[in-house]
């Protein structure tokens, strides 16, 4: 299993870079800060099961940036410089290189995310809050999945672009679309349709499903559905948390699978 060799080597190289330290530092600082503020400003009851609803908004903005910026160059920069040739003339497949890179970069993001959430969880519990462990652990798993989604998207971008610069542009495009523009565009659509008299302030179910396909909205929905006590996702079955979870998993494997399929068939020269 040579992907482990790739992953180990990649982690040790990536962890020492200034950008990785900075990105993970910002993420951890933000999460821990929220863990500190939540018992003071959050609505009662203060528990580790209600805390996730408090942080998802920040995470849906921050994790895309951190995940993508940590992984967009994983393959593209080696391809541009030519060092990927040194890997691939060893008995290593392209699949094991990509898998190794994904494990390394996704591992960094999820480790940073889960570690800082644990710390934040401790701040929630002490001195005011209640520990509701199963739901909090469930949230950690969902957050880790969300981190993997954005790392996988970053690696997919890295495979699709032949240079580091193009990967960065493409990556920012993806983050910008889903983490910045999406919600505003959805609001504009809703207001527009309401003003035109077509709907009554609420998007119809099918359209809600469509606009709810962004990774951030899916993450919000699974958090509400699975973690937050006494809350449930409203609407027809296809807006439910299980469907959202399945689509979220699809985000983790779909784009990367497609990009890999193309990469596998392309010439490196």
């Amino acid at each position, binding site marked *: 299993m040579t992907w482990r*060799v790739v992953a180990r080597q990649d982690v040790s190289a990536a962890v020492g870079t200034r950008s990785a330290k900075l990105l993970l530092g910002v993420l951890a600082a933000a999460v821990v800060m929220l863990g500190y503020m939540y018992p003071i400003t959050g609505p009662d009851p203060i528990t580790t099961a209600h805390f996730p609803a408090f942080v998802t908004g920040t995470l849906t903005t921050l994790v895309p940036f951190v995940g993508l910026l940590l992984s967009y160059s994983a393959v593209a920069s080696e391809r541009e410089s030519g*060092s990927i040739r*040194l890997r691939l003339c*060893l008995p290593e497949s392209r699949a094991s290189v990509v898998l190794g890179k994904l494990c390394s970069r996704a591992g960094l993001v999820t480790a940073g995310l889960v570690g800082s959430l644990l710390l934040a969880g401790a701040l929630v519990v002490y001195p005011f809050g209640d520990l509701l462990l199963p739901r909090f652990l469930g949230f950690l798993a969902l957050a880790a999945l969300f981190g993997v989604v954005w790392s996988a998207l970053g690696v997919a971008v890295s495979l699709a672009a032949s240079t580091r610069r193009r990967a960065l542009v493409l990556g920012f495009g993806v983050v910008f679309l889903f983490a910045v523009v999406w919600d505003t565009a959805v609001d504009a659509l809703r207001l527009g349709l309401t003003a035109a008299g077509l709907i009554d302030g609420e998007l119809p179910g099918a359209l809600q499903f469509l606009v709810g396909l962004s990774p951030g909205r899916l993450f919000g929905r699974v958090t509400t559905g699975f973690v937050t006590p006494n809350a449930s996702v409203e609407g027809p079955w296809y807006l439910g948390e299980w469907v959202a979870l399945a689509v979220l998993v699809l985000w983790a494997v779909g784009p990367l699978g497609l990009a890999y399929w193309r990469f596998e068939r392309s010439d490196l020269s």
Partner: protein
Amino acid sequence: MVAIDAHAVSKQYGTEIALDRVDLTVEEGETFGFLGPNGAGKSTFINVLLDFVTPSEGSVEIFGHDCQTAGVAARERIGVLPEGYSVFERLTGRQHIEYAVDSKDADDDPIEVLDRVGIREDADRKASDYSKGMAQRLVLGMALVGQPDLLILDEPSTGLDPNGAAEMRRILREENERGATVFFSSHILEQVEAVCDRVGILQDGELVAVDTIEGLRQSLGGGTKLVITVDGMENGTIEDIRAVEGVETAVTDGDSTIEVTCTNDAKMDILVELHGAGVDVVNFRTEEASLEDMFIEYTGSRT
């Protein structure tokens, strides 16, 4: 067992043909020189061997493993010095060798490997600070890890000084004596001549000759080279010589030197022809045809 077995390998980029139905067999244990001017397709062929590039048609096997469909198995027993690589940023020389050791599941001592390629003192420096020649030594070291049965080297002496190139040849010879097959490309003829059992000459994507150096010599009509110094040349002198029976090539080198490759019997005829044309021969000597002469013969150009 055959080390490299290529069947009608072609590669087309748009309308440009980089490789044109190359058939090539490299036997286990030999040192094979892959020769040709820059842009002839040598690197494309090696890229196909390494599965960096998929051939448009044809297939190639290394020790019976198809390089495209079973690439990992094909690369299991080989060591490679590719072209167009760069070393890993942030890794030291020693870490590069360690990576190759891990990847090949070998048990070489990285320091011994670095010592063998002559960069032991630089083991703990970042490889991105290495000169081109040191990087070339480092990657050769990575190739040597795990005692490969086949070494594939693309222009191995690039960036090396004459000393380094001689060391490279010594290592290749040692590896061959250990039993490894050596396959390397070069556009520098002296290197190929010095170490190779057989050579293949690639020209515009086509393999125009595969033979031993001795065999190539013989196919050139005995391979005698005549160097004639004259006191002055007239228009048409070269054409007259080319018309003599048994002459393979005739080229001028400056105003007063003519180099002719020809059969042994044609030597006197050439001198008689020159005399008849009123050209005074100041001096002449014969040489054994070098690989360079053969190369010109086959490709019509100097390297």
